[in-house]
């Protein structure tokens, strides 16, 4: 007998050890992976690539403030040097004039391979005449003044052709030879990390390096008042990870402490409190282990969510201790366990719906909750009775229950208010039906508004690219991707001429395909032919052929010049422009062609872009729209899944309770509470997000327990003050668990808190109002 009784405990201990082993070896993350779709469409895949690997995810913007303008410039240069040497960055740009002139030299040396104007016609007498006249005319302009020195070598103006096609309007201002903000009060650097944006650890390291190098510089060079600002997607990721991590710890500690304090106050028995927390702790551990096994990685948000489990799982042991006190051995099992079992089952049904979500964050929450609640219930049912000392007596809370009986009677008389409340809630929701759900992903963003403001201002300073609209081409090889990018470029040029687009970028601009480069090289005539053509081209122009020998030399050289390869651009900022737009993926090469839209006051005609691309493999993507679409998909799906979950719960209860009236009495309080919470949130100006939806599922999970207890078949809790007290206590614990979430600065956790806290209280009150009161 004794050995048999020890078996559940042994199994439990073994299970705990296994879970702890899994949890200890699990991979934890707090990056945006939880928000990325599990089976993306091509456009979503692109969005994911951009978020995890793309240019934007690797871009860090750095501002230096304080000190003097020349001090900032000096700091900018030394910091750039140190970071370049540090090796964590693919590129460090601060607008250093030396770097820019290096770029220009590279462009100039390769102008005949790069300039789109290089065709055989360009070097006929007519073509030369037109091009040279244009260059001479340009000398009348202030621009010409800067290019005058190049006329002898580049009379056809290929460099102008190249630079002219660059976007100069968006480039940052510069002062003392480095980039500065528009008001001149900040020096600006633009860095690209070697690590992908999704590698938050490496990003954290890179950001730490920027700060430590700057701190060292500031004290060395005597700029004690200089400050550094760092922003970018990676900073958001690192900060929100830190916030989520510290929040997870803080909230769990806070929630646990409050619940423990409450239990101590009620039980007045330290042993009971410890025992009561065992199911919770076991459940949390099992939840983490289940997620680690099921998903490979555990998201920090899931752990933060763990605190909510304290609120719900502790209920089971509260019911057990409070209700079974002074009950004969096994009595509780008979009377209350079926009710709790049904409560756990409804929770499982509710959360199981989340498992099917394409949003991994939700799926993790679902699995975590199911594993956690089942474990907590099982531990309460099978392990606690064995661990409970024979002489455990908790402080009698029956007096509280008796006081509540009066309150309950009073609440019962108010039952007619319930339909009124429900109707009012529905009216509020119908009146606001357009703004119930938040339509953008930003509702989920854990980034603080201060961080967002800093990022905005640095981005504005830099004229950093707005990569909202992209054309994407995919190909099997680098060359094929470049060729496709060139043919897309041809089509887009027409749209630029029509004013539909202000311009576009392309990896083929600085890295034309080999075929294109070859064609351009072949377009260059032999020296004698060129000299001959030049003679007739210069008739009527104030330029004599003998001044253009350097031109003949350069063309001659270009005819034998090797084609540009990625290696030839290495070390220049041109390489960065190419690398960021031409990506190697496991399934091939991807070329990105960011589009620049005309001034904001003219609406962007994306349909014309799509029309221009018809018949090609190219894909037009609106990143902003796509991310909102993605969120919309998650939300629609989650709403459907939640409804399915609630339906499943109703069916389950219908089957178990058998009587339709009892089903109604159990479900009406829960559904009314949901409506009231939704209406309350909407009325106070909250746009509901996915996480509010999760919170509403939790209300169902917790609330049905209360409703079921009030509708027990054999006896009403009103007859048993202890049951009533246990419900209040359980409710308090739940509210404390979620109340701590409601104060969290992490929006996702806060959303769950402000939904479930009020929801739990409302369900309890409504259940009490509607419960069928037995005869006194």
């Amino acid at each position, binding site marked *: 007998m004794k050995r048999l009784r020890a078996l559940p405990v042994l199994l439990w201990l073994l299970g705990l050890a296994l879970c702890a082993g899994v949890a200890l070896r699990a991979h934890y993350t707090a990056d945006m992976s939880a928000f990325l779709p599990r089976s993306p469409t091509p456009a979503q895949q692109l969005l994911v690539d951009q978020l995890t690997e793309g240019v934007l995810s690797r871009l860090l913007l750095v501002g230096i403030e304080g000190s003097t303008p020349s001090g900032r410039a000096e700091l900018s240069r030394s910091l750039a040097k140190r970071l370049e040497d540090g090796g964590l960055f693919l590129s460090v740009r601060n607008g250093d004039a030396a770097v820019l002139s290096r770029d220009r030299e590279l462009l100039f040396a390769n102008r005949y391979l790069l300039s789109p104007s290089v065709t055989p016609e360009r070097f006929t007498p007519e073509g030369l005449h037109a091009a040279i006249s244009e260059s001479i005319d340009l000398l009348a302009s202030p621009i010409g003044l800067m290019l005058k020195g190049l*006329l002898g070598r580049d009379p056809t103006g290929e460099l102008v052709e190249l630079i002219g096609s660059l976007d100069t309007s968006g480039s940052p201002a510069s002062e003392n030879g480095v980039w500065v903000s528009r008001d001149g009060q900040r020096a600006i650097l633009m860095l690209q990390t070697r690590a992908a944006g999704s590698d938050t650890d490496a990003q954290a390291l890179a950001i730490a390096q920027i700060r430590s190098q700057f701190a060292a510089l500031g004290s060395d060079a005597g700029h004690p008042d200089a400050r550094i600002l760092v922003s970018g997607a990676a900073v958001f990721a690192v900060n929100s990870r830190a916030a989520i991590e510290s929040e997870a710890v803080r909230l769990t500690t806070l929630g646990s402490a409050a619940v423990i304090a409450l239990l101590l106050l009620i039980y007045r028995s330290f042993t009971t409190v410890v025992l009561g927390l065992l199911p919770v702790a076991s459940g949390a551990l099992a939840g983490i282990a289940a997620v680690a096994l099921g998903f490979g990685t555990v998201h920090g948000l899931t752990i933060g969510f763990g605190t909510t489990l304290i609120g719900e799982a502790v209920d089971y042991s509260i019911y057990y201790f409070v209700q079974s006190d002074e009950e004969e051995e096994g009595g509780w099992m008979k009377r209350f366990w079926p009710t709790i079992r049904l409560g756990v089952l409804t929770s499982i049904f509710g959360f199981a719906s989340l498992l099917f979500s394409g949003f991994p964050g939700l799926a993790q929450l679902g699995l975590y909750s199911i594993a956690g609640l089942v474990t907590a219930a099982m531990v309460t049912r099978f392990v606690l009775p064995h661990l409970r000392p024979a002489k455990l007596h908790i402080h009698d809370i029956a007096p509280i229950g008796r006081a509540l009986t009066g309150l309950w009677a009073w609440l019962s008389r108010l039952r007619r208010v319930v339909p009124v409340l429900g109707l009012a809630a529905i009216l509020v929701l119908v009146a606001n039906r357009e703004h119930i759900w938040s339509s953008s992903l930003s509702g989920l963003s854990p980034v603080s508004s201060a961080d967002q403001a800093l990022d905005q201002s640095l981005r504005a300073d830099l004229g950093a690219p707005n990569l909202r609209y992209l054309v994407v081409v995919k190909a099997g090889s680098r060359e094929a991707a470049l060729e496709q990018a060139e043919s897309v470029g041809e089509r887009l040029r027409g749209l630029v001429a029509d004013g539909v687009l202000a311009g576009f970028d392309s990896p083929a601009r600085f890295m034309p395909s080999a075929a294109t480069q070859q064609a351009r090289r072949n377009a260059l005539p032999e020296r004698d032919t060129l000299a001959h053509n030049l003679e007739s081209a210069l008739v009527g122009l104030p330029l004599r052929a003998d001044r253009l020998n350097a031109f003949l030399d350069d063309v001659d050289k270009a005819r034998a010049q090797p084609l540009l390869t990625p290696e030839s651009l290495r070390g220049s900022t041109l390489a960065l422009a190419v690398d960021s737009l031409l990506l190697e993926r496991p399934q091939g090469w991807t070329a990105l062609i960011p589009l620049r839209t005309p001034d904001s006051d003219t609406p962007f005609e994306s349909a014309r872009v799509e029309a221009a691309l018809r018949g090609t493999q190219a894909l037009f993507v609106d990143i902003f729209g796509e991310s909102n679409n993605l969120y919309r998909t998650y939300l629609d799906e989650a709403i459907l899944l939640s409804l399915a979950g609630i339906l499943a719960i109703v069916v389950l209860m219908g089957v178990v309770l058998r009587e339709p009236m009892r089903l109604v009495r159990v479900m009406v309080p829960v559904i009314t509470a949901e409506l009231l919470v939704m209406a309350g949130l909407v009325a106070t100006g909250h746009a509901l997000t996915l996480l509010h939806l999760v919170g509403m599922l939790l209300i169902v999970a917790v609330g049905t327990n209360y409703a079921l207890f009030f509708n027990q078949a054999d006896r009403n809790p009103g007859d048993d003050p202890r049951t009533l007290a246990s419900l209040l206590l359980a409710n308090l614990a739940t509210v404390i668990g979620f109340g701590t979430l409601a104060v969290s600065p992490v929006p996702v956790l806060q959303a769950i808190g402000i939904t479930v806290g009020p929801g739990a209280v409302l369900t309890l009150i409504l259940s009490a109002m509607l419960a069928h009161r037995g005869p006194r």
Partner: protein
Amino acid sequence: MKHALRLAACLLMLAAMPAIAAWDLPQLMTELARNQGGRAHFTERKYIALLDKPVVSSGEMRYVAPDYLEKRTLTPRLEVMVLDKDEISLERGKQKITLRLREQPEVLAFVASIRGTLSGNRAALEQNYALHLSGQRDNWTLNLSPSNPRIAELVTRITISGSRQQVRSIEYLQADGDRSVMSIEPVDAR
């Protein structure tokens, strides 16, 4: 009548002897600052060593004191340059370039010289140039020699001449020996 006026002027000048002795910078600057703006035709000749003939361009200018200047080149190509406070923008064909003034010493050299002269802002001029004034009120010549070495790398001397508050010509002698001369003819003859 004219004689009488001239006599009166002479008497006035005698009365203000020190002022005459120096038909000087402060006076020129005060007079220039009085110019509230106006429109003018311009013709610009650029003498470039590489070319046998100067490059000639012409068009209209509009100035609104103290810091708006629009130069609309009509030949050989339409080009509009607008200098407005801290920004200079250039529109040519489909292209539009906007620069902020702090950026490039080349641009700053020209802007500071033109704008400083037009608005009679001596302090702004002396930030980058050493000033030398010669001639009389009706026919003055102001020489600007760059004191800032970065500007000196580009421009050796800027010569601005005019009568009273009206600038008539601006000549740039560039460091490489090339030179450009812009002559200015006001549209509203005063």
